[in-house]
């Protein structure tokens, strides 16, 4: 018995020191892996080294010159990347916990919560808190100063972007939520509801760039002498219209871009609102029917007020996405043809015109616009009992 206990104790002590030791080794591997990843030619050089060792000199030379089995090198890189990225994060937490485990219990209790929260807080501190401060500062003193940075927004181009953002906000949000609500109510009454929903929901998985390509094809325009293979112009000309270059024709082009967003976001609205509609109790509905309400009254006067909380959640969430719209406009028009929005203008100011101060000012405007919507969103979630 005593021997057993002693050996168990020894094993326990061994483990106490082995784990931190393993941690140190792990962190070294992690560091090497990180350096390897930071080198753009790291994987190619590694594979070239392996080829040298196995006597494949031609393969090695080709790789060092950026040719040969670059795909294999990429696969090696992918393997290292996944080990470093996924394994690394766990190494950090388990290693730090093990090291803290060596301390006295009282110290442990004091330090361990910080081991758990500090990695997240550090990143948030740098990427969001510090950045917000710098961007605001930059918008005030950067480049030619406050009046130029913000004054730019009040010139015709800036005002056009704001006008377009408002169009996006109103029609994008209203369209998605309205259609989502109607479709949720309709689909709720048919068989194979789940299947029908999938069709409307599916675009949500597609990237905004992918969606832009899909719709660019729908809006494609050819001169009247050529065949119209874009769906919209084909339909339009079959009704006797002249083919229209939809994407390059203001003001309709902005509305057509908004339509892409509505196509994507309606599925989201539908799913949330459909769940809410199903949550309305049978008793309430029956009581309203007894009182002689017809189906439309029932929906507008009973169902909609009950699910108001969900409608606000959906509307604010969509509104935030829509306000920050970038991809669709950037891919479809690059902000040309009078379709510019704040996020695209900000990107172009920063990366095409290198006007950091103006770009920062536009980011701040976007931030201020999102602020009240986010506030309503969070307050509404809290009222619904989320995040207490």
């Amino acid at each position: 018995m005593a021997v057993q206990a002693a050996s168990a104790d020894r094993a326990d002590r061994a483990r106490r020191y082995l784990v931190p030791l393993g941690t140190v080794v792990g962190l070294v591997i992690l560091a090497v892996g990180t350096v390897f990843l930071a080198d753009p030619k790291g994987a190619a050089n590694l594979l070239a080294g392996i080829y040298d060792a196995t006597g494949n000199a031609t393969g090695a030379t080709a790789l060092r010159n950026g040719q040969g089995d670059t795909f294999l090198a990429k696969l090696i890189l992918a393997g290292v990347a996944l080990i470093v990225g996924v394994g690394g994060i766990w190494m950090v937490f388990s290693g730090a916990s093990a090291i803290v485990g060596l301390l006295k219990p009282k110290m442990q209790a004091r330090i361990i919560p910080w081991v758990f929260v500090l990695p997240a807080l550090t990143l948030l501190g740098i990427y969001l808190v510090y950045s917000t401060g710098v961007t605001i500062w930059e918008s005030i003193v950067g480049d030619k100063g406050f009046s130029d940075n913000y004054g730019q927004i009040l010139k015709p181009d800036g005002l056009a972007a704001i006008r377009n953002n408002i169009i996006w906000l109103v029609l994008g949000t209203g369209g998605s939520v309205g259609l989502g609500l109607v479709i949720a109510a309709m689909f709720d009454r048919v068989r194979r509801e789940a299947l029908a929903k999938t069709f409307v929901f599916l675009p949500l998985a597609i990237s905004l760039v992918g969606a832009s390509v899909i719709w660019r094809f729908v809006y494609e325009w050819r001169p009247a002498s050529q065949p119209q293979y874009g769906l919209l112009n084909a339909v339009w000309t079959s009704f006797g219209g002249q083919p229209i270059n939809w994407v390059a024709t203001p003001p309709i082009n902005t509305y057509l871009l908004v339509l892409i967003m509505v196509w994507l976001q309606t599925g989201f609205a539908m799913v949330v609102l459909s769940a809410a509609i199903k949550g309305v109790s049978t008793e309430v509905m029956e009581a309203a029917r007894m009182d002689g309400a017809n189906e439309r009254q029932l929906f507008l006067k009973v169902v909609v007020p009950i699910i108001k909380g969900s409608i606000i959640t959906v509307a604010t969430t969509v509104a935030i996405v829509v306000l920050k719209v970038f991809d669709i406009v950037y891919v479809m028009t690059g902000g040309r043809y009078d379709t510019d929005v704040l996020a695209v203008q900000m990107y172009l100011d920063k990366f095409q015109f290198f006007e950091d101060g103006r770009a920062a000012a536009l980011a701040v405007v976007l931030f201020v616009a999102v602020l009240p919507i986010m506030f309503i969103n969070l307050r509404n979630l809290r009222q619904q009992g989320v995040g207490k």
Partner: protein
Amino acid sequence: MTATSTAKPVKGVASVRAWRPMMLQSLPLKVGVLVICLLWTLPTFGLLVTSVRDGRDITVTGWWDALIHLFNTRWTFDNYAQVVNAQGMGNSFLNSLIVTIPSTVIPITMAAFAAYAFAWIRFPGRGLLFTIVVGLLVVPIQMALIPVLQIYSVLHLTGTFLGIWLAHTAFGLPLAIFLLYNFISQLPKDLFESADIDGATHYQIFTKIVLPLSVPALGAFAIFQFLWVWNDLLVSLVFLGVNANVQVMPVALYNLVGNHGEQWHILTAGAFVTMIVPLGVFLLLQRAFVRGILAGSVKS
């Protein structure tokens, strides 16, 4: 959950579902539903059909024409071969995987540890810090671009996978902590009390009890973040760039639009290649995805 299940009408029960009155399986309604499903699918379907047509035919007749003359159309997979090999989409596909998987795992891990600490460990300042973290949901990514880029150019992190993992992680953390906190803080209290008596450390409690119980919430957020990162254009464009060595699929597709704007056989096939993974993830894990959406969706 509820959103994807359809209750079958049960005999003898007047109204199983509140919003399913008797007369409403009417014909106009059915037609309406059918039309909506059709309209919603048509644009994507047109893209898919076009992507397997011969490049020379695409601009001569509309894609619907190819369906009408189903057997007289030149169908081909060459477009895909060209896009994957010559246009470098195969390479971008790997890049996207390298970017997306760690960019999903890292924030979830960090957020789960932090959410557990915020929910179940007492430490000074925890209420205030948690409020700040949730408050950061309001910060648009645009606010971070310029300063983070300055830091990255000093540290040589621009155009590296490490750099973009950290960026996606930081931008995903507020929502991840918020959602996981909502879940983890609702776990029954006695779980932790009995573990405490057994002398388990917080790390053991977290890995042995909290993580296994949180799988639904972790999975839901994982799908969210995965799709978000896979489909992202802005963050990749800014921090990873257009270098063919590292560019991810949305950036590659954007370049195709710029360089081959009228070559629809390349564009349509390219677009579809970028969609395969998200569509697969989505169709396989639709229930979990819906659960994640219903758990609160305030991604900023």
